[in-house]
């Protein structure tokens, strides 16, 4: 059986007719009792399960996923990774995540195709320019790589930008360490590595309720029966309010549809990531050659996972405004995911009012970049009962104390 992926194992399997590969992760029967249960097989849940085993030696762990792993937002996102935040607490957390991403292919022995091709935010008016300077300065003060560029320098780096745009391109900031990664590979890589350490990954298993005794969580009721554990972590993104309600908790979360689409594949023509807040779009090119285009949030509560036509049109118009040469590309696919938005665009990661029940949510439109750090910190919390220092400011109590970390207005993080 071939377990480790390497040039040598590829060669050996090539010679052996590819017969020795084993499934990337086991498909076990659920047990009645675990030391820890993680709800949600997106990036955050899978990373949590992996770090529980890897960092804390907890291997009697179940990860319970309603559908298939990576079928939620993790497999639907536009895969931009960056740490261009404003406040020190966010910058430290997200940059730790980028650093984990930098070593992740090696750590997991799985090629997640992290390509640090830079991440540009364009400024289209004087105020945007001032915000860009402020943002670049904040990043530098937070110890994060940032470059401010004026118009000629933006145009020199990004060929093909509209020479005569309706919304002038006055400048922009670049985070050179930003980039993209293969989203499915992040989910599969964590799943494979967690499974190898003993974690049970249980798919097609929906959590229906919590078992709570005396104010303490004792397990979960699922579509495959009860599973008991005194530690439960939930990372269910857009469904956070629905699941939390089963434990009697109310969250300051709104679920909205966020959509994206890809064009037909073309030869390499865009080697960085571009975000243009003013035109309401952002894009990059995948290794397959598709342009990956993201739109804005449909700003009404929805679990319908569709994405509205006006926003799709707006994003497409934005792309054509930025790059007239893309105007004749055809759409290949469109989809949406249900994202968990909170007022201050800062995650919720901490304990809850129910002992032993921990929560990871509030990533909104930008939690793919946070997968390694979010999993790291939730695992730390579940294993030790203490919030990880990097996530201490992200507790749900901030909505009562008022200690919000308002990235929404500070760094203009979308929505």
């Amino acid at each position, binding site marked *: 059986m071939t377990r480790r992926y390497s040039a040598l194992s590829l060669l050996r399997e090539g010679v052996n007719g590819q017969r020795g590969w084993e499934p990337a992760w086991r498909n076990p029967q659920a047990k009645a009792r675990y030391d820890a249960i993680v709800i949600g097989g997106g990036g955050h849940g899978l990373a949590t399960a992996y770090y529980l085993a890897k960092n804390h030696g907890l291997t009697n762990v179940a990860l319970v996923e309603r559908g298939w792993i990576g079928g939620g937002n993790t497999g639907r996102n536009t895969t931009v990774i960056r740490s261009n935040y404003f406040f020190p607490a966010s910058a430290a957390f997200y940059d730790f995540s980028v650093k984990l991403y930098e070593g992740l292919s090696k750590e997991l022995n799985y090629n997640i195709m992290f390509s640090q091709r830079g991440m540009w935010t364009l400024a289209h008016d004087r105020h945007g320019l001032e915000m860009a300077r402020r943002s670049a300065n904040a990043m530098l003060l937070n110890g994060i790589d940032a470059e401010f560029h004026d118009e000629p320098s933006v145009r020199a780096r990004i060929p093909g930008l509209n020479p005569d745009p309706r919304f002038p391109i006055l400048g922009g900031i670049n985070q050179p360490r930003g980039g993209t990664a293969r989203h499915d590979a992040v989910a599969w890589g964590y799943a494979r590595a967690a499974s190898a350490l003993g974690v049970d990954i249980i798919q097609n298993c929906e959590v229906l309720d919590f078992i709570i005794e005396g104010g303490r969580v004792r397990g979960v009721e699922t579509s495959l029966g009860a599973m008991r554990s005194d530690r439960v972590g939930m990372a269910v993104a857009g469904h956070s*309010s629905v699941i939390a309600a089963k434990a009697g908790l109310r969250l300051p979360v709104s*679920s909205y549809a966020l959509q994206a689409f890809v064009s037909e594949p073309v030869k390499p023509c865009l080697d960085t990531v571009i975000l243009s807040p003013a035109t309401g779009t952002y894009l990059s090119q995948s290794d397959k050659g598709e342009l990956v285009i993201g739109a804005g949030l449909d700003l*009404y509560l*929805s679990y319908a996972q569709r994405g*509205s*036509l006006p926003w799709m049109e707006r994003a497409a118009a934005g792309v054509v405004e930025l790059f007239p040469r893309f105007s004749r590309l055809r759409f290949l696919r469109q989809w949406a995911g249900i994202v968990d938005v909170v007022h201050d665009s800062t995650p919720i990661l901490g304990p809850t009012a129910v002992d032993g029940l921990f929560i990871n949510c509030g990533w909104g439109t930008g939690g793919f970049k946070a997968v390694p750090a979010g999993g790291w910190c939730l695992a730390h919390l579940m294993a030790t009962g203490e919030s990880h220092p990097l996530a201490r400011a992200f507790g749900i109590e901030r909505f*009562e104390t008022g200690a919000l970390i308002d990235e929404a207005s500070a760094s203009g993080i979308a929505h």
Partner: protein
Amino acid sequence: MLIIRCPYCGERPELEFAYGGQAHIARPLQPSDQNDEDWNVYLNLRANPKGWHSERWRHIHGCARFFNAVRDTRTDHFLATYKMGEPAPEVPST
């Protein structure tokens, strides 16, 4: 594209409307009596159901008036829209 019925102007495309959040939330009558927990409930905690939801919309690019609606967040299907001050229609149980 959603077609939304403004109770004043009739059916119009979604483009003309702005969402206004959960309906029937009243500002506290005595703000000074509220503690931190009350403020959290009033400011931050909103219904986020997977199912029927009573909500406000505004026909911002039309008559500009606010009105209420009941919509199923699973399908985005509108059960009804009604004027401010009118009683909410009966919501199906599922």
